[in-house]
């Protein structure tokens, strides 16, 4: 049984249909990356899983238990098992609490008052490689990278089974970005964590994710193992994303596939394939609506997929 099983999730904010049927599953200990442009619905997916955004239709099963639309009473104990890392590291920390009380806040919320908060704060800070005297500091005294680690420490406090991480490396310097990814990789192995990571940095995905799903306008358009996607993406949108990845080499030969225009408005979804108008490879058949097909674990929503690159 999958640890997390999301099926046909729909979310609308008024008339804006943000998620139009998202399905994916995450196994225990697995890292799954959700990739896509701004506005593709990545953040809404994980917020809906955590119960922070509404989901009008579909199902979210955690450890076999349905949690979509569950009451606060049902959700609260489950929040021990599902932790969230928010996108803005400094903004997600209350400016008026010390780091020590911020990272032990989960214990207080869960009513675990018998714990020695000082000892826990020290243990958690050590776990994310921060000096223990940081417990007395305030968020404004931290750098971006340090604030991220506090976010990681807080997410780990209750020993969750699943972490939902929204752009965990956004805004970090490259040298610090590596540290954070190493930390997450290490914790995942030691604690057997499963993770859903949202990012638009494909260079990062390659090193942390086991599998990845590519989102466009609130739907998955392709899904597969990270290796398969990087080697042999079949959806033109995925190919565009992969090619829009500037290489740190002035002589890199770029075979860039240009994306046309901007993502269409969610209030006015295109007919047929929703990527059709921006797709450099669109054909006549693309006016029909593509279905989700899965072949050997590689999911695809495209009527005119790219040819496989073979062994290349």
């Amino acid at each position, binding site marked *: 049984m999958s640890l997390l099983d999301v099926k046909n999730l729909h979310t609308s904010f008024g008339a804006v249909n943000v998620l139009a049927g998202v399905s994916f599953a995450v196994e225990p200990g697995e890292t799954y990356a959700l990739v896509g*442009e*701004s*506005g593709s619905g990545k953040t809404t997916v994980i917020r809906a899983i955590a119960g922070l955004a509404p989901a009008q239709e579909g199902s979210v099963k955690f450890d076999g238990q349905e949690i979509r639309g569950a009451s606060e009473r049902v959700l609260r104990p489950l929040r021990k098992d599902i932790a969230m890392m928010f996108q803005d590291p400094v903004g997600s920390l209350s400016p008026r609490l010390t780091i020590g009380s911020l990272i032990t806040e989960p214990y207080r919320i869960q009513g675990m008052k018998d714990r020695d908060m000082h000892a826990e704060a020290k243990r958690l800070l050590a776990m994310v490689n921060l000096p223990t005297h940081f417990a007395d500091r305030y968020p404004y005294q931290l*750098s*971006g990278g340090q604030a991220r680690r506090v976010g990681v420490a807080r997410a780990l406090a209750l020993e969750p089974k699943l972490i939902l991480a929204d752009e965990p490396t956004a*805004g970090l*310097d*490259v*040298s*610090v*970005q*590596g*540290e954070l*990814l*190493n930390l997450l*990789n290490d914790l995942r192995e030691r604690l057997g964590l499963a993770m859903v990571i949202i990012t*638009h*940095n*494909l*260079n*990062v995905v*390659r*090193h942390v994710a086991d599998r990845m799903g590519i989102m466009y306008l609130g739907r998955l358009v392709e899904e597969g193992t*990270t*290796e398969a996607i990087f080697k042999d993406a079949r959806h033109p949108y995925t190919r*565009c*994303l992969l090619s*829009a*990845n*500037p*290489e*740190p*080499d*002035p*002589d*890199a030969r*770029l075979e*860039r596939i240009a*994306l046309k*225009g*901007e*993502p269409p408005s969610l209030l006015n979804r295109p007919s047929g394939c929703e990527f059709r108008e921006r797709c450099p490879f669109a054909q006549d058949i693309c006016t029909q609506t593509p279905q989700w097909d899965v072949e050997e674990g590689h999911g695809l929503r495209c009527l005119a997929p790219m040819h496989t690159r073979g062994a290349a």
Partner: protein
Amino acid sequence: MTETLLEIDRLSVDYETARGDLKALRDISFDVRKGEIVGIVGESGCGKSTLISSILRLTAPNTRFRQGEVRFKGQDLLQATERQMRDLRGADISIVFQDPMQTHNPVLTIGQQMLDIQHRSKDSKADKLARAAKMLGAVGIPDPEARLAQFPHEFSGGMRQRIAIAMALMSEPDLLIADEPTTALDATLEVQIIERLQELQQEFDCAILFISHHLGVIAELCDRVVVMYAGAVIESGDVREIFHDPKHPYTRRLIDCDPGHIKERARVLPTIPGEVPDLANLPGGCIFRDRCEQAMARCATDVPPLTQLKQGHHAACWLNHEEANT
């Protein structure tokens, strides 16, 4: 030899703080020639922002210029009057800021804002609007005439950044400063912006000072690169020299850290352990010494000067000096 447009000559800038003087920039020298794209790379706290605000003289009140000159077309901007600076800003030197969501005034239409920045021109309003529409078209905004009547919130982030570029180029400046213009954008939009900048640079023949910590973008866009660390230039040179034959350990480590370099899945990614030194309390010797694996005795005592290693490649590291090997 192409004409030099901007020369930063031994610039040192401090911030006066309660903890003492923060030495934000120390002995910075580099130049930008007419029509070339120079990239400035560095991580948080390296002094990129202080450098930009020093060039434009938009510095905080506690800023002290300790030494050096910022020469633009031969004139030292640090000695210019406020009046002269006002005439220069937005006309000869313009800037695109990092956050496209906060660049525009939310209560004025794009058209009005593009009119406002043409306040120096004596042309009719109709002519100014026509020019604004033309610029929007040049940065790839479809249906520019109609969109002039719209407000910033009616545009996506990528479009807003392109509008900011259009506005910065309206006056046909000689120098465009781009302060991390793609950091807040998706990879696909980032690529669009870079390609657009390259085209416009050809069209308008302006020089660009491009600040970024994204090495991939720098490699793709720039002719020359200046690498900064903790308020100092530690290496500068032709983009190929910097990426293929870096001569400062920091540059080398920075390039190694970029996950874009590592094609196979890595279990452990390279990092640069340690932290940037406290600028209010600088250690003696080389500023990178504490984090450098190749540090020698000399690095603790003497500050390595930025020396020319070959035509167009400078580095500030004792490892490149003869005596290091003896």
